[in-house]
């Protein structure tokens, strides 16, 4: 590759080469597939192609997460003449199956008819992909394949054809809102940072959450660069959790490759625009998802929050104006610049535009990563795309927003999922975790699980959060051991109110949400625990029952 090639030349060369090849086999390399041997499957296909003398005429590559993690390794094949390529998608591909597939492709030019194609299933067809559009098309460790799919063309358009203010205007018009939590309008945030006075400005990508980021590295980096151009920053930080080593490795490689092609660094696209990105690795502190704590952590200190205002947009990293956006927010930016704000605003609902990525998990048939337009109902997400609840069990609740969110009971299954409607039922969009629970989950136990998490993750700076989470947890431990009484419920509600109104940061303010939401919708379960000392789901080891006499395993008794 020559560093002087323009993006267009690279894209044309790669696309022409791909069109001419007889076949293409892409193997999902997301964490789920890697854990069940995707690497070995890839090698098997490559070896067989080589053996059949087809190495030159076939393209065998890794690709980003296909979403249906539980059915990995996932393999897609594409074959036929350039103008009429056919595609098939296979699940649960083991090495033997991969070998058979490659052999058949090499000898007859098409995959074996005996293998079942899953590409047409609702899990794949009912999604709308913007952020995850390139999963399956690109090789996450090869920048040229990403450029062939259009990566960095939006950055080129922004820095060579648009003024920074015009870019901010585009984002404002698109209606994009922050994907990390409360849904603050992204354009408004950008214009605040753009207008703020400061000698240096920074762009921070908040990746301190459950988004498996591997497949969208480049659109994230491109989005960060566009944001930097729009607000006048020259330095960016991307904060990734240490628990995601695969994402860190791929990000570092992606940054290096982009720097080599002058897509990041100095004089990007031969303009006066400079932008450097550094990866910062988190170290296992949930509170660092809060923006002021995140700043403290990037500065190398303990991740403790501070009161706002001043907001980071005015005084952030090292006291300078800092734009902090969530990974998914930034991953939308390039597509908006490429396709125009009107296109983006045409997707979703009146107040929530675009799509949302969800990590479907828990008691659901198809677990994995999906992207759907805002406003799709929970029923469609869980039963059509997710395939419903396994084992003939009944749906009980969907949990969104993690420890800051709440549970949505069955009566709201037809709720369109957007920022406002989720807020109305007492939860938040959050970063996209959607955990389904069936009748075998005890909602009091779930509330206890979340508050235990917040208790441990509280940074200890402010008293309401530090002491309040301990008190709430103690009460819930009592209740789940059959030792609670009716007044405990009132105490829980009082404490929840206190934490909400007096905690310093989002962690403490939202920590009681799972408790409040489960009391609101599953009060009868709480009442069974405190009045009858009975756990309807049979999860809690109640005093007097046989289970209670066994030593408590996962949780200690307060």
């Amino acid at each position: 590759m020559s560093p002087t090639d323009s993006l267009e030349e690279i894209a044309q060369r790669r696309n022409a080469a791909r069109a001419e090849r007889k076949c293409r086999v892409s193997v999902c390399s997301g964490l789920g597939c890697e854990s069940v041997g995707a690497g070995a499957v890839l090698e098997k296909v490559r070896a067989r192609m080589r053996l059949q003398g087809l190495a030159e005429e076939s393209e065998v590559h890794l690709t980003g997460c296909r979403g249906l993690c539980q059915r990995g390794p996932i393999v897609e094949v594409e074959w036929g003449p350039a103008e009429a390529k056919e595609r098939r998608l296979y699940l649960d591909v083991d090495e033997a199956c991969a070998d058979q597939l490659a052999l058949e492709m090499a000898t007859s030019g098409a995959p074996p008819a005996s293998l079942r194609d899953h590409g047409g299933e609702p899990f794949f067809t009912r999604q709308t992909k913007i952020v995850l559009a390139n999963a399956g098309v690109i090789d996450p460790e090869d920048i040229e394949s990403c450029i062939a799919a259009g990566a960095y063309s939006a950055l080129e358009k922004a820095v060579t054809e648009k003024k920074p203010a015009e870019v901010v205007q585009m984002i404002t018009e698109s209606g994009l809102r922050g994907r990390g939590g409360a849904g603050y309008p992204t354009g408004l945030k950008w214009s605040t940072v753009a207008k703020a006075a400061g000698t240096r400005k920074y762009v921070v990508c908040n990746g301190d959450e459950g988004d498996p980021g591997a497949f969208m590295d480049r659109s994230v980096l491109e989005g960060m660069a566009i944001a930097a151009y729009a607000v006048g920053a020259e330095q960016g930080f991307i904060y990734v959790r240490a628990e995601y080593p695969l994402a860190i490795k791929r990000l570092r490689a992606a940054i290096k490759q982009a720097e080599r092609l002058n897509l990041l660094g100095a004089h990007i696209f031969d303009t006066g625009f400079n932008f450097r990105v550094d990866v910062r690795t988190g170290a296992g502190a949930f509170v660092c998802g809060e923006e002021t704590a995140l700043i403290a952590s990037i500065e190398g200190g303990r991740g403790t929050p501070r009161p706002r205002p001043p907001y980071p947009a005015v005084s952030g990293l090292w006291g300078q104006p800092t734009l902090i956006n969530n990974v998914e927010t930034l991953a939308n930016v390039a597509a908006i610049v490429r396709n125009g704000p009107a296109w983006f605003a045409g997707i979703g609902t009146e107040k929530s535009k675009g799509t949302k990525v969800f990590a479907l998990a828990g008691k659901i048939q198809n677990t994995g990563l999906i992207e759907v337009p805002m406003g799709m109902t929970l029923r469609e997400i869980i039963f059509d795309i997710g395939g419903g609840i396994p084992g003939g069990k009944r749906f009980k609740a969907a949990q969104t927003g993690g420890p800051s969110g709440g549970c949505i009971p069955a009566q709201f299954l037809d709720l369109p999922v957007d920022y406002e409607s989720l807020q109305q039922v007492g939860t938040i969009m959050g970063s996209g975790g959607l955990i389904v629970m069936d009748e075998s989950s005890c909602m009091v136990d779930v509330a206890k699980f979340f508050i235990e998490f917040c208790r441990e993750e509280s940074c200890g700076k402010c008293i309401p959060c530090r002491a309040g989470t301990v008190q709430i947890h103690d009460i819930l431990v009592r209740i789940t051991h059959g030792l609670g009484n009716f007044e405990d419920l009132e105490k829980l509600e009082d404490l929840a109110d206190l934490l909400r109104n007096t905690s310093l940061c989002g962690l403490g303010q939202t920590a009681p949400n799972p408790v409040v939401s489960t009391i609101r919708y599953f009060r009868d379960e709480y009442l069974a625990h405190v009045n009858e000392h009975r756990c309807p789901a049979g999860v809690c080891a109640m005093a007097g029952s046989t289970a209670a006499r066994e030593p408590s395993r996962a949780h200690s008794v307060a």
Partner: protein
Amino acid sequence: MIAEPASATSPKGGDKRLKMLDAAMRRQQFQADALLEVLHSAQELYGFLSGEVLLHIGRSLKVPPSRVYGVATFYNHFSLKPKGEHTCTVCMGTACYVKGAGEILGRVRDELGLSERKSTTDDGKASVVVARCVGACGIAPAVVFDQEVAGGLGPEAVVSRVRGWIR
């Protein structure tokens, strides 16, 4: 506590790891802001952060020991005690919890005689630690054996994997 030669944990021992740690700090231009990144490098090299390593880092970056210690103890990822030869990390994220991670954790700890407070066996062969989501919700419950992520295993399968380590 594992019996280790003094040089392994002491920065003054002059082994290669110290040179690598110094190189890592040089790459960060000995900036105090890079403390977290440097601690990551040190933990990768030594497996844990000993008092001597922390002091050495503090002196090199010109950060008071109180702050180095404060940062090292604030984050769950850093360990001030040596870990076992093998580590079993049980993910206790929500998706894994709903799928029975609590039981897996209890069974593995029981098997090795470990608890919330005691994470490494006396012979230093195995450690059991809890992660707050390893990002593998789609294959929950997720367990990481050393560096390798495994999904969908029941308590029995996890216990038998770990049993292999201590024999």
